[in-house]
């Protein structure tokens, strides 16, 4: 049995304005699994990632990493792990953003090594060695000294993947990683994610790329109106007779 890395139970999220984005979302991810979350805009996909990565506070339910509770509900109130535990929990995951969010005043190399050095206290030389290997793997070796603004969107997104990987997370989240890219650049980013999947990186990917999700995922989750409408292996989902799901997938793959 592979180790359970992430466990989300009955996650709820209601924004201050009363908008109930997540009604009841549960997800368990084991080591080495690739899970894609698909669904129409406003279905709550991105909110799942934001809650799981603690960018957005949750309204109910629980989130745990490597068997350690991060957020949970007690007597109707949301509690969170102690500072020390939270620090360890936050090291478990990384997140790749839709619009990269690279640090513009840092070169590619600095973007990748700064967090390991100033957060994880990795010796500078070691951080550089690690970054060089990552850049090599992602085909960006010649860009190490460039500033982000000189790179294409696809290159920027690959750098942001390298930046996330440099901290050696156990789980990597992707929030619509290709939505800001044209088809050609999309392909180069998807290739990198596929490569990571082949290396058994545990990943949770919110995406609109249906064909990609089908190829890369062990499991696909279809969300709508803040709940999971269907989930299963790619083949199960793509051959499902759920009318809404067929309709949704059809729109993207035609």
């Amino acid at each position, binding site marked *: 049995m592979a180790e359970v890395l992430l466990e989300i139970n009955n996650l709820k999220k209601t924004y201050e304005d009363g908008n109930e984005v997540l009604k009841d979302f549960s997800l368990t991810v084991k080591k080495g699994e690739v899970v894609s979350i698909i669904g129409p805009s406003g279905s709550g996909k991105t909110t799942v990632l934001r809650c799981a990565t603690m960018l957005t506070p949750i309204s109910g339910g629980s989130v745990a990493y490597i068997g350690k509770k991060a957020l949970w509900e007690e007597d109707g109130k949301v509690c969170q792990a102690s500072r020390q535990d939270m620090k360890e929990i936050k090291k478990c995951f990384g997140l790749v953003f839709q619009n990269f969010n690279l640090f513009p005043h840092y070169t590619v190399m600095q973007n990748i090594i700064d967090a390991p050095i100033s957060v994880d206290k990795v010796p500078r030389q070691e951080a550089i060695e690690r970054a060089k290997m990552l850049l090599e793997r992602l085909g960006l070796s010649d860009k190490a000294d460039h500033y982000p603004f000189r790179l294409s969107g696809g290159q920027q997104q690959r750098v*942001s993947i390298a930046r996330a990987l440099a901290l050696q997370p156990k789980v990597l989240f992707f929030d619509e990683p290709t939505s800001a890219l044209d088809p050609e650049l999309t392909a180069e980013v998807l290739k990198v994610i596929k490569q990571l999947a082949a290396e058994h990186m545990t990943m949770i990917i919110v995406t609109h790329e249906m064909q990609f999700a089908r190829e890369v995922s062990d499991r696909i989750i279809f969300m709508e109106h803040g709940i999971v409408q269907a989930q299963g292996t790619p083949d199960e989902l793509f051959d499902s007779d759920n009318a809404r799901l067929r309709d949704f997938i059809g729109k993207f793959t035609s």
Partner: protein
Amino acid sequence: MQTSTMLSQLASGMLVSIEIFVLTLLFSLPLGLLVALGRMSKSRILSGIIKVYIAIMRGTPLMLQLIVVYFAPYYVFGINISARFRFTAVIIAFSINYAAYFAEIFRAGIQSISVGQWEAAQILGYTKTQTFFKIILVQVIQRIIPPVTNETITLVKDTSLSFVLSVAEMFTIAKQIGAREASIVPLMVAGLFYFVFNYVVAFGMEYFEKRMSYFR
């Protein structure tokens, strides 16, 4: 009066003007950053106090503020004011006045940085303080150079307001000589000095702006 005597007197005033300028920048820029952070504080009380402070600094004449700062120790605390306090009062008044303006520039700059930068840093494990000093501040500085240049140029000219406290800077001296000699020349020379000073400041800031444009 000989031209050379006049010039040497004006020159000594010029040094005082430059001193006021440099000291004011030295104090008001960091103070402005602190004020901006206070203004954006989650504490309603702190941000409220700061708002009032900024409103007073921007809403009343700087010349009046100079006078108030100079006489405050006497009227508020009953302390006898020595003549040497004039210069200190000028620096205090200029610093707290310019800090208010710089604070608003800093605030606009900080708020213009996308929330994605904060979020990316949070995910990578940076603390809030690390994020601010390592990630945000450099980007803010790059963006606020043009409005800061504006304020800096205004400050060069505003140093002349120190004449109300009879601090022997350029303008005070030019006015004295002008009155004594019944001549407009000293004031014209002073004007030329302010112009050249500002030309240098603008040039320097433009250079700094270029140096800071290595990223976008």
